[in-house]
């Protein structure tokens, strides 16, 4: 299983801070596309992804137990 975290406008769109689902074997891009379709997530092309708290590329494959986070453009500071 995987914990998938959402922040900022994505959290509002999903209606939850995180989802528990099985994404192992999928690439980041595949998971992104699945969730974007299910939850009608806006502007996913601008959203970065982290696996286990480190930025990951779209072609990286998700392993069982990995924590995934979708990172919209940041606005700290």
């Amino acid at each position: 299983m995987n914990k998938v975290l959402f922040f900022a406008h994505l959290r509002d769109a999903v209606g939850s801070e995180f989802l528990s689902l099985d994404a192992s074997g999928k690439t980041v891009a595949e998971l992104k596309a699945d969730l974007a379709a299910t939850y009608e997530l806006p502007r996913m092309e601008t959203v970065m992804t982290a696996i286990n708290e480190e930025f990951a590329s779209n072609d990286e494959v998700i392993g069982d137990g990995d924590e995934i986070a979708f990172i919209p453009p940041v606005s700290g500071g």
Partner: protein
Amino acid sequence: MKMYEISKEAIDIQAVIDKVVQREAGAITTFIGTVRELTHGKKTLFLIYEAYEAMAVKKLEQIGSEIEQRWEGSCVAITHRVGRLDITDVAVVIAVSTPHRADSYEANRYAIERIKEIVPIWKKEHWEEGEAWMGNQLETVAYPSGKPEAGDLDE
């Protein structure tokens, strides 16, 4: 001592500065990021900052390592606030000490610019006529649609 922190409470500025005091230093620069009322003529009422805390701390640590490699003898401490912040509240404090002052100014500037690139922290602007998550650093693009929508107006 934790050099990189996400804080739900008001930041103790002096405490951040004290972390970088070192006998080798000839300068400490402190950057204090505060909540501005007017952005391009638009009046902010308050902000909500949210962080992916575990990753945000790691990314602040990464910025600190980058600085310590690039500016010899430097020491860095950063605290970023989360939660609701009102106008003039302190959102971030960056303290950098170095042997010589020029490095201290440069390294501190580098830290804030990197925060705006890689640290997973977001702010939600609340205006009189609505609210939106800010999506880029020019503060011209807000998600989901670039400006408050009709549906937001009653909030």
